[in-house]
């Protein structure tokens, strides 16, 4: 092929571009989106790159349509993705629910900016974390990854595609404006060193195929349109065949399946970066761009001999509750800097169950914390 889908080598690119390259490397061949700062560059890169590698880029009329289109493409057997920021993420919510209910793999990249509403279009925010978890109505399991660097924008977008195929559902890459617009070295590995999960298709006789069956808390293989399984896919409560059944009994099975496939596999999905937790008295807990300054603060404090730990959430959802629960009785406090008025901090507080203090260092958006502020805050507990 004249053009490469995996641009193996060293690049100096921003996080948005790295998200796009991660998608392409994972096999994404369909992108539907709508321009929005600070995520537009993801779409622009896809518009240029997809036709080079045999894919389709389409700019839809809005984010509702974009989300619907990537679900449709996914049922057409093509790995698909969209990118957006707060206002567009809000518009996507109903069809994200459709993706959860119909167990449709795809990836949604959210380069977060300050909200609510139009908020700070060009400036950073991290206030969509709870929306990612609870934004669409009803119960479902959620996977959200938070890259802290352009390199991770690449790595975690690939990983998001893999998780979306394994658990058959939309997966979120919750980046932020700082990481999205930051330009750094990104190393794209050779194809053989990349882990790419391909879709599993059914191969059993038609009568034995149940497209919405739960097997050991995992979803069934996914039939593609035209494959011959004549599947019915509906956002209504449905049985294992996909037929709508409007009863409490089927609702119980349906909802528990889409929640439990994440809940029961949470420990397999969760990824954190943990440093210095063994003797830590205070644990800095952060994600995304905030984790970069928190890391600096952590190193400065350690250099000064303070027993501080650093816990970076790579998966924000599912949340590493067991880890927090285990740490809480051993530490004095968790200090949680984030660019919102309390989202992950509440989750830390909830899982710490009063066994350690929790301090939220809140910024409403538009700027990042300084290491000094964080060091100062940690100082309260030293």
């Amino acid at each position, binding site marked *: 092929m004249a053009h490469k889908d995996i641009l193996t080598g060293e690049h100096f690119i921003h996080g948005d571009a790295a998200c796009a390259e991660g998608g392409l490397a994972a096999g994404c061949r369909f992108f539907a989106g709508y321009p929005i700062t600070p995520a537009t560059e993801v779409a622009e890169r896809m518009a240029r790159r997809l036709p080079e590698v045999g894919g389709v880029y389409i700019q839809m009329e809005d984010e509702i349509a974009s989300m619907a289109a990537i679900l*449709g493409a996914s049922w057409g057997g093509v790995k698909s993705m969209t990118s957006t920021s707060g206002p567009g993420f809000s518009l996507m919510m109903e069809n994200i629910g459709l993706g959860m209910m119909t167990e449709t793999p795809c990836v949604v990249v959210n380069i977060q900016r300050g909200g609510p509403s139009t908020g700070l279009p060009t400036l950073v925010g991290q206030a969509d974390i709870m929306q990612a978890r609870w934004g669409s109505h009803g119960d479902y399991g959620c996977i959200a990854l938070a890259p802290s660097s352009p390199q991770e924008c690449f790595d975690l977008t690939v990983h998001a595609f893999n998780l979306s195929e394994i658990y058959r559902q939309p997966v979120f890459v919750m980046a932020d404006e700082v990481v999205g617009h930051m330009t750094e070295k990104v190393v794209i590995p050779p194809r053989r060193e990349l882990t790419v999960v391909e879709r599993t298709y059914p191969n059993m006789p038609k009568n034995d195929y149940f497209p919405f069956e739960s097997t050991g808390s995992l979803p069934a293989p996914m039939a593609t349109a035209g494959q011959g399984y004549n599947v019915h*896919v509906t956002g209504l409560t449905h049985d294992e065949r996909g037929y709508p059944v409007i009863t409490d009994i089927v609702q119980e099975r349906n909802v528990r399946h889409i929640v439990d496939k994440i809940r029961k596999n949470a420990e397999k999905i969760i990824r954190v970066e943990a440093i210095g937790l063994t003797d830590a008295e205070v644990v800095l807990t952060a994600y995304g761009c905030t984790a970069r300054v928190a890391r600096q603060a952590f190193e400065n404090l350690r250099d000064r001999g303070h027993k501080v730990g650093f816990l970076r959430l790579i998966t924000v959802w599912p949340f590493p509750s067991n880890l927090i629960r285990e740490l809480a009785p051993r530490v004095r406090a968790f200090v949680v800097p984030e660019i919102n008025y309390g989202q992950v901090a509440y989750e830390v507080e909830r899982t710490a169950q009063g066994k350690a203090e929790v301090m939220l260092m809140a910024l409403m958006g538009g700027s990042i914390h300084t290491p000094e502020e964080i060091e100062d805050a940690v100082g309260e507990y030293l």
Partner: protein
Amino acid sequence: MKVRLRELQPFDKEAAEAAIKHDHGLHPHDEYLKPGRIPHIWCPGCGLGVVLTTFIEAMRRKNITPDQCAVVSGIGCTGRVAGYLNMDTYHTTHGRAIPFATGLALAKPDLHVTVFSGDGDLFAIGGNHMIHAARRNVNLKVICVNNFNYGMTGGQVAPTTPLGAKTSTTPRGNAEPGFNLPHLAHAAGAVYVARWTTFHPRQLVHSISQTFDKTGFTFVEAIAPCPTGYGRPNKLGAGLDEMKFYGEHSEIRNGAPPGDAEIELRGKIVVGTFIDVDRPDFLTSYNSRIVSAAQAKGKQKEKVKIA
């Protein structure tokens, strides 16, 4: 926290299978109908069954097998059509059948992708998607069942309800005029536009089969009785009477300018095939303009490297 759950009642595959064996195969169209899905949910006298049958007849006429087709629906009584057809079917969210189908059609260009949905779904909440898909000329066949109201939710006013017509949310009559759907579809760029009523099943079959031969965005409006939501408040009688009413008020004018297809309460209904033209569909245009340019540039690069 502790979680207490009710005991799950597992899916009874055998019972489901037995029910299918008992019923499936009795109806002449069963090859095209999903096993175990009939009886349908529609009211007696509803026009939806007629439209579904004409779609199946059109497939038969064109020798199109279920594996060559996919149907996407939005939400509403019409939205339930998808679930009855024995092919890959997608019952999506209210108004979003067209963008979902856009993704599907672009991912699977060999499939005949049909969007089957109601007038409210396609032209109120989904109106924006409708006009953009027509403008792009995505290869989709849209069949819009127009019953002049929101049937599923109990007969509220729709963007097609004629001026003066009564619905549950226009108890004193509608203060707004309704859309002229063929005119709108034409203006937005559809390459095929027809309107019939369920009184014209043969013409409907003919039009739908013609759309199977077209590449691009086609639009067929099927005016259908909804005795429950629209016929009763507007004193059009039972389903059969309402169908007859539409038949009697129809005026067949193939090739008529779609602007003439305005509908007034108790007025004439212009039916026919209004538009049948050709222009490159989205993928043809994308491939010839974008993909070829992108790949030609790639080849150039390669040549430079070789040199």
